[in-house]
């Protein structure tokens, strides 16, 4: 079976962050979000990623940086031939792993 590799920036709040590598099954047409959901079910349930519509490209919640480029994880295709580097959205405060503070200020509890 073909595999894909993800190098994911992990960390909570302002604490030091590190990259953690995950190897995931690769299927033709699969997306980066598919791979992250697989990691949560099979490798690390604590991996944090914001998403809602999963595949419809309407909610815009899963915005992250893949190989330095700002994209939606749900529409970015997974590649099998090299490791992909996943970072939280630059310029936003990191909450945890790939989740950044993208809520409008008035929608936050604090």
């Amino acid at each position: 079976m073909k595999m894909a590799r993800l190098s994911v920036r992990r960390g909570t709040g302002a604490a030091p962050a590190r990259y953690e590598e995950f190897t995931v099954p690769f299927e033709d047409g699969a997306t980066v979000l598919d791979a992250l959901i697989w990691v949560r079910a099979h490798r690390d349930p604590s991996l944090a990623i914001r998403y809602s519509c999963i595949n419809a490209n309407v909610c815009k919640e899963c915005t992250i940086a893949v190989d330095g480029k700002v994209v939606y994880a749900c529409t970015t295709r997974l590649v099998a031939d090299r490791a992909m580097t996943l970072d939280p959205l630059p310029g936003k405060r990191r909450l945890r792993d790939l989740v950044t503070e993208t809520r409008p200020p008035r929608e936050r509890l604090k």
Partner: protein
Amino acid sequence: MTHLDADVLIIGAGGAGMYAAIAAARADAERVLLLDKSLVGRGGATIMAQMTVAAALGEESDDDCGLHLADTLEAGRGLCDATLASVLCEEAPARIREMGEWQVGWARRDGGRIAQVTAPGHSRPRCCYVDFLNTGPAVAATLRRQVSRIDAIRRLSNLTVTDLVVSEGAVIGAVALDAASGEPVTIAAAATIVATGGLTRIYRRNSASANMGGDGYALALAAGAELVDMEFVQFFPIGHLAPRLVGMDPIMWDPFRYKLGGRLLDGAGNEFLARYGSDETDAYTTPRDIASHAITKEVAAGRGSPHGGVYLSFEHIPAADLRQAFGPVIERLARNGIDLARAPVEVSPIAHYHMGGIAVDARMATRVPGLYAAGEAVGGANGANRLSGNAIPEALVFGERAGRFAAAGKPAARWNASAAGQAVERIRRLAEGRSGEIAAAALLDELRALMWDDVGPLRTAAGLERALARIGEMRAALPEVAIAPGRECNASLADGFELSASLVAAEAVTRAALARRESRGAHQREDFPASNPKLAKSGLVSMEAGRVAARAGA
């Protein structure tokens, strides 16, 4: 610990929740609190809707609300709650015109009339839309804009309600998990509206967003409300199956079938709908329940397509017509390697909408004082099968009513912090983390497969019993589910709560399906293939001491 006070608390900020907030503020509620476990106006089903909105506007024909109601009752196969269905059809035009005034951008004909097309099951051209495939995003954006202009509405994103708080037999508020901090939040509310949408996420093939796991049903049951028609899950017949399509909702083919027809073919390329009593010679007319049943039977008989569905072909349509109908969608399909002029796509039934839900009266009030429901979370209006186009009007009409009546009601009981104690403690305890071998996300995957295989478009007593047994084992295993450490944005903590609620919702569907010993609309029993006229009554589900029980209608 954070404590919030509200006159009207609304759980879920899709179309129904946002409309409820607007209506509550209009009815002079001063403190309206609108929560979403995702982001306000972005999670939920409304924004996913690519299709049409039914309302008897009479822009294109001699339509009226009575005709819309007759079509809704016919589609519901004898099970619609006539009061709720009447409210839906009578008030849909006012809501749709109001959305027009709010600049939602309904497609219009030359001269400015709102364009209305005829979707399957409708006797008149009645269904409005926003081009191209943009109805839901436009409705959601319009409501977000309206909500943000009203000072009385406080919006909070990433708050997951884990429990309703009950005191003296009334709902007096809720306890929520604040995802960002992992801390519990208590909310006192004179009235609470459940607007959490449906449960289609508990099926393997679904068109749901992440937060459609049925938690509103679990909340309502635990608070003492009843659920109605829970066995009726709408399987949208032609959900996209293959080749893999990203960036588009899997139910996107329907509008193009309205415009162009298109042919459904089995794995060998032969038409088959006629064998199930549907004639599509002239137009796309097959109701959803019949099409889903026909496709599922073809696949079960070994006549499916390679990925376990059937083919949808537009190959016979001239390229210019395809381009006119699909517009920019042609390029989006091309980026997914799909060329409709050259090859068919594979489609399959896909869990799309839940007809069942919380039992309410015409004020959207449950039998529990202080507790209301709105939108897809409500059961009954659509009976055993929902007409295409009735979901968004249901969100808007029921949302408006729930907000208005909830704001007018008197507080049923005073806030009582000790009644929230157990729920608060549960969040605190689980947020500490818990070691274990079972991952909630993996169990959720298993539940989705189980529901698809045994409580899906074709059901038998044996399959339903098998599902019940496994759901029971999973509920029993909940205390052993692992929760990763770390309070902030702890996805595994959220998964744990989702699993717990989804199992209750799944059990409610399965027990209701077992109790209905006939086939009707979206509920198809292989062991009882015919409809029984004596069973044309809605069944109810309730919870006693944590046990889910279904009873047939009386």
